[in-house]
Structures are given as structure tokens and as C-alpha cells.
């Protein structure tokens, strides 16, 4: 009896799910308000044939290339990070590359597909944490100041690497009291994603690299027709940030002690989007068009433009092969072009039994040869400076546009309480998007909350 009725329920649920059309799509896609992780769990395009890499392992030398140094004999270390199967394949290949350099170091890979940060904090509190692992802003905040991570500065020299081999703008999040605690394994940023066919159909000239914010606004207005919106943006701090940076503004002061996102620049940037959303009605939230995030709205051709990052590429390649799109740099603001950068790193447990081998693994994985090998699978953009002009980009203009933004972007990092600052920005924007509040009033309220949070001990 019970079993039949349960079957019935499952059937009903399936029917309902089917009725809701594209709803399943919405759930698998990252929510727009979430910070896109540098390597959002997205399927890599070429992981089926990752061995195609032409890069001779370990034999290359130059800035950013790893030089072998002595480690503990017969070391056995563990490496852990989040990631779906595609991401896991990327790291299994990377560990194989590492083992060509260090054949006698045994690396056990322990992927944690969900709730990685919570699990790692619990493991760390119980002294059971892996030797090397992904470090993001949340983990750095928890571990960095409490001495749970190994400083990598000494090992940098031994491996012939230096901080300036990486995009230096990425390092502050992994730095505490002048020491570096994790190596940026890749980075993510935003570009202008658009559908060229919509521009042709509306008789609007396609965007170019020297577009300004005014051009964007005008084009969005002309492209808005019927159920199609010109531009898609959620009330999201990350997508909003570049429009503030390019006016010279920021969320906080340089020491992360005071929130500044109610500055005249911030009001101006917010007003810009509010006009598009409420006056021109050329800007849609993803929920306005029934999508989970703006990438999905582009995929379903509900909007002509949005600001999204590299995670769009495999997403579209997987489920929306027929959508023709282009990614170019963001338009310029009053003080030139800017962008926001996201990164995750690889750090070492301070309590590891094999500090040298673990540091070698972290440094190798973050080094140029490993990142360039991963680049060629299309999985992530390399955080090593010299890799941004890699020949691979010649055939991949979309990725190339994003790589160039890496050079001008600013890191999404506002100190230990940064997550609460970001949250306050997002809430202020949401009030404006809803028309509940004027930009200045909404931002003032947000700054009050953020200042309280930053003062909290």
C-alpha cells in the first residue's frame, strides 16, 4: 500500500517537473547572486582528451615555470577540493603531471563535490584535514589568521618562482600579515556576452572593444523589443562592481575598515542601472524572463547582452550548441575599463607531516606548466601572467577577451568581513531593482549595515 502510494507521488512529481518546462535547467545553473567561483563546477570541454597538451612537462623554464626542489623521501600526501566529475578529471591529470616530476611522492586525491568549505572546517577543527586543498575567501578567512595554513614564501624561492609570476592583483586574498598562504590556481572574470544575430535583426551595430557605457545603454534600449530585453543583470554585487570600479569607486576603503559604496561614484553607477531597469525598461533581472541566471537568459535568447564569465562557455557548449554568441571586453567608463576578478587557490595544511612535498604540489599545480596544460582543456583561465598571451588564445577569441580583462581587473576581496560587505551591496541593489528605494537611500542603509559588520569582532 505504502509503496504504491509512494510510487504515485514520485510519478506526480515527475509529471509536475515535466510541466514546468525549463525549470530543471534553472536548478543546475549557478544562481546569479552567487559569486561565480573562478572555476565554477562546469564541465570542461576537452577533458575527454586532456592528454593532447603539447606542453613538454617540466622541461620548460622561464618565469612561472616550476623548478624541482628536494622533498621528504616517500612522502604520502592528500589533496582535496570541490568539483564535479569534469573538474576531478582535470585534477587527476594534473596530479599525473606532478608525478612525472616527483615520481616517489604519493598523492591521494579526495574530491568533495558539495559543502567543501564546511567539511574542511570540521576536518581542520578535528586535526583531520588533508595536506593540500583548495583555499577560497571563506577558508582563508577561517584558516589564514588562525595559523592553520603553511606560509609558502620560503618554498617559492626554492621552486624558482616568485609572487610576480602571478597576476599580483589576485594575491591579497591569500596574504595575511605579509605572508602568502595559497597559490592562485586560476581566475575568472566578466566579459560582455552578446548575441550578434539580435544586433543584426535590430539593425544595431555590434559592440566593439572601445564601446563606452553610454553605447551599452543606447544599444540596450534599441534591442529591447517585445519579450526580449537588451541587457540582463541581477541585483548582484559582482556584476555591479565593474561599473563602480570604472568610475574610480570601490566597496570599501583600502584597509577594509569602512564601507564606501554610497560614494557619489557608487550612486552614479547604481543610477545608471536603475535608469535602464526602471525608466528604459531595457534591463531584465533573470527572474523577469524566468531564468535562473543571466547565462541561461542568453542561452534561451531572452536577452541580447549580459556580463558573464568563462563558465558560460562550457555551459553553452553543453546544452545550447546552436546559440551563436561572442564575448568581448567590458565597455569603458569615465576612468577607463575595469573588471572584477575571482580566484581560488591551493594551500597547505600547517599541520602536515610532509610540508615540503605538500608545498611542492601546491606550487606545481599553480605553476605555469600546469595552468597552461589546463588552459588547453578549456577548463579555466591561467593566473600566471605570462600565460595570458599563450598562443592557444589565438584560436579562442572569447577566452582571449576574458584573459585580457584579467590584466585590468580588480580582485573581489574586501577583508575578513568582505562577504558581509558584498551581501550589503547586493541588498541595496535589490531594493533599487524592485523600485523600493532610491539609489542613495538604499546604498546609505547598506553602508550602515556593512560598517557595523566590519566593526564586529
Amino acid at each position, binding site marked *: 500500500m505504502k509503496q504504491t502510494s509512494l510510487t504515485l507521488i514520485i510519478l506526480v512529481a515527475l509529471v509536475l517537473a515535466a510541466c514546468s518546462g525549463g525549470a530543471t535547467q534553472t536548478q543546475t545553473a549557478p544562481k546569479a547572486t552567487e559569486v561565480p567561483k573562478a572555476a565554477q563546477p562546469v564541465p570542461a570541454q576537452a577533458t575527454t582528451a586532456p592528454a593532447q597538451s603539447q606542453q613538454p612537462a617540466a622541461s620548460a623554464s622561464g618565469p612561472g615555470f616550476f623548478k624541482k626542489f628536494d622533498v621528504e623521501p616517500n612522502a604520502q600526501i592528500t589533496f582535496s577540493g570541490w568539483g564535479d566529475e569534469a573538474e576531478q578529471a582535470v585534477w587527476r591529470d594534473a596530479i599525473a603531471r606532478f608525478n612525472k616530476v616527483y615520481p616517489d611522492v604519493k598523492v591521494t586525491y579526495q574530491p568533495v563535490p558539495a559543502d567543501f568549505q564546511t567539511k574542511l572546517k570540521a576536518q581542520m577543527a578535528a586535526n583531520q584535514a588533508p595536506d593540500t586543498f583548495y583555499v577560497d575567501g571563506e577558508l582563508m578567512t577561517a584558516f589564514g589568521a588562525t595559523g592553520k595554513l603553511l606560509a609558502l614564501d620560503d618554498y617559492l624561492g626554492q621552486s624558482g618562482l616568485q609572487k610576480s609570476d602571478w597576476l599580483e592583483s589576485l594575491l591579497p586574498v591569500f596574504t595575511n600579515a605579509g605572508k602568502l598562504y595559497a597559490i592562485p590556481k586560476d581566475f575568472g572574470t566578466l566579459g560582455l556576452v552578446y548575441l550578434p544575430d539580435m544586433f543584426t535583426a535590430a539593425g544595431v551595430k555590434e559592440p566593439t572593444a572601445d564601446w563606452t557605457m553610454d553605447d551599452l545603454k543606447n544599444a540596450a534600449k534599441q534591442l529591447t523589443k517585445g519579450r526580449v530585453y537588451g541587457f540582463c543583470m541581477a541585483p548582484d554585487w559582482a556584476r555591479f562592481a565593474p561599473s563602480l570600479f570604472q568610475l574610480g569607486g570601490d566597496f570599501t576603503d583600502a584597509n577594509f575598515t569602512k564601507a564606501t559604496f554610497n560614494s557619489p561614484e557608487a550612486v552614479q553607477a547604481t543610477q545608471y542601472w536603475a535608469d535602464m531597469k526602471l525608466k528604459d525598461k531595457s534591463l531584465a533581472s533573470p527572474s523577469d524572463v524566468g531564468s535562473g541566471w543571466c547565462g541561461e537568459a542568453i542561452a534561451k535568447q531572452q536577452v541580447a547582452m549580459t556580463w558573464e564569465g568563462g563558465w558560460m562557455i562550457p555551459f553553452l557548449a553543453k546544452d545550447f550548441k546552436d546559440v551563436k554568441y561572442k564575448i568581448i571586453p567590458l565597455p569603458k567608463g569615465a576612468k577607463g575599463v575595469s573588471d572584477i576578478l575571482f580566484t581560488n587557490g591551493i594551500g597547505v595544511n600547517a599541520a602536515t607531516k610532509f610540508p615540503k612535498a605538500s608545498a611542492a604540489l601546491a606550487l606545481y599545480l599553480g605553476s605555469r606548466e600546469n595552468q597552461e596544460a589546463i588552459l588547453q582543456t578549456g577548463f579555466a583561465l591561467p593566473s600566471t601572467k605570462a600565460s595570458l598571451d599563450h598562443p592557444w588564445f589565438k584560436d579562442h577569441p572569447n577566452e582571449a577577451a576574458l584573459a585580457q580583462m584579467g590584466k585590468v581587473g580588480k580582485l573581489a576581496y574586501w577583508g575578513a568581513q568582505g*562577504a558581509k560587505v558584498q551581501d550589503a551591496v547586493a541588498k541595496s541593489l535589490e531594493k533599487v531593482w524592485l523600485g523600493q528605494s532610491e539609489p542613495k537611500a538604499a546604498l546609505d*542603509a547598506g553602508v550602515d549595515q556593512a560598517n557595523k559588520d566590519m566593526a564586529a569582532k
Partner: protein
Amino acid sequence: MAAQATRQRTGFWQNEKARGEALTAYLFLSPYLIITLVFTVGLLIYAVYLSFTRFDLFTPPEWRGINNYIESLGDARFLRSLYNVAWYSLIVTPVQTLLAILMAVLLNAPIAGKRFFRTVFYAPSVTSSVVISMIFIWLYNRNGFINFGLSQLLSRDVTVSWLQEPRGLIEIIAGLFGGTIPADQWWLRGPSVALMAIMAMNIFTTAPTFMIMFLAALQDIPGYVYEAASLDGSYGAHRFVNITLPLLRPVILLVIVLSTIGTFQLFDQALLMTAGGPLDTTLTPTLLIYNEALGKAGPPRMGLASSMAFVLGAIIFVFTFIQRHYIERGTEQI
């Protein structure tokens, strides 16, 4: 007499049989007892200590006195979460209790296919809340079934993003009469559409659990009471209000108390369906405690989280006490 009593008392430990029985009882109790002592009582005491300290999980706790309590009572998010959950409890508790009684009475009546309906009604309660939440996310989706159904029903496009709509009930009602609520006065807005969507789901899943309790209580009411009532000319609604409901009073108390405690502790649905958003309108105290304790935004603040947990516990205790006082007073008269 007195000497005999003393001998009996001391005799307990000397009497081998009695002692053996007691030890056996404790032996059988021990698995649960040890787990409770270590993982509930022990941790509870530790949490009391932590609530007076600053603790980031990794460095030793540092004494802070009552500062955590002062801070949590002044924390805008904590007050917001209490406000949300107060509305939640205020609406969910009476609705689900009434619904549970109604379903129990229906299923207690001699109707065909009673067993089938019992199973179907009860199924949501035995399904995992994670699974139910996932299904309801689809239903509440902008392209979801709820909007589809409403569109068919009202024959016009309904495009509400149920779980992303922060507008409050009072705000919407005020809006119908052309009123607006100033942006910073969130406490006047009432429960948001998103929160009400979670309420509806929770009523759907929890009411059947309480229905079972009422069903059991209904079957406990002896037939002769109804027989006597019918001799006195009491039937139908009159009998239900004057005989059935008063006899259900102890169970109603139990259900209301359990429901209040449960609603104040709303966690998994809020985490899965909205993560506290939009605009903190579905933020619940337990969700906030979880976020603070594990450092989901900023460094872990286990001490502050513990103090919030005890404030929440005190609030639940006070409500339970008041409810008990009012409802039980009535019970004793019968």
C-alpha cells in the same frame, strides 16, 4: 514503622535481586543514556560556556562575559530573523493544527478507501524535507506549475517568482489601497511572499504528522460518550464542538507546542529553497546561527552563535509556557 521503612530503603542495595534489576535497567538504558549525556547534555553545557566567549573554531575560546548576548540582541539580522519566524509560527501553527484536525475527522469517518487516503495524506510527512523542498522549488519556479495552474485558472499570465519575491503581506494589502511602506521600515511589511510560499509547503508536509496524533486521540474517545451525547440530542457540528474538541484538548496542546517549537526552528527548507533571501525575508534564527557558527560570511563566530541559540531557546520556552498555562487550565476542568 520508621525502622521498617529505613530497613526497606537500605535493603534495596543489600537486596541482591532488586539491585540486579536496577543494574539491568541501567545497562539497557546505557546506550541511549551515554549518547545523550555526551552529545546532548555535554554539548549543551559546552555551548553555555561558549556563549560567553569568542571562539573561531581553531584558536582557544576567549572569555567575553555577556557581550555576545548584548550583541545578538542588538544584531539587526537576528531581530529580522525572529520577526520572520514569529510571523511564520503565527500563521503556520493555527493553520496546520486546524488542517490536521479536519483531516483526522475526515479519515475517522466511515468512508470508502479510508486506508488509501490515510496513506496518501501521510506520505508528505515521511518524505525527506530535502526532496520536498526540491520539488517545491520547481513548483514555485517562475515557469513552474503553480504559475501555470494560476494562469489557467485566472486566464491571464501569472509570472510571480514565488521564492524571489520580498514584498510583504501587509505591504501588498496596503498597496491595494494605494499605500506604501518606507524602504527602511521592514518590520511593517509582514511576511514576504517567499516566506509564505515556504509556509504553504511546510503546512503541507507537517499537518499530516499531527493528523496522525489527532486520529489516535479521536479513536481513543470512547463510543459511550457519543452515545450519551446522542441521547441528549447532540449531533453533527454541535457534538463536534462540545464533545469532540474538548476531549481533544490535551492533544491540541501537544500539537500546538510541538508546532511552535518546530516553526521557530525552521531551517532546512529555508536553507535549501531561499538561503534566507530575498532581502533577508526568509532568514530564520537557526539559519543565521548556522551561518555565524560555521563562518559562512566572515570568520566563524561560534560564541555569538551559541548566545543566539540560547536566546532562541528562551523565547521558545516562554511561548511554550504561556501556551501550556492557557490550554492546560482548560483541560483540568474536564
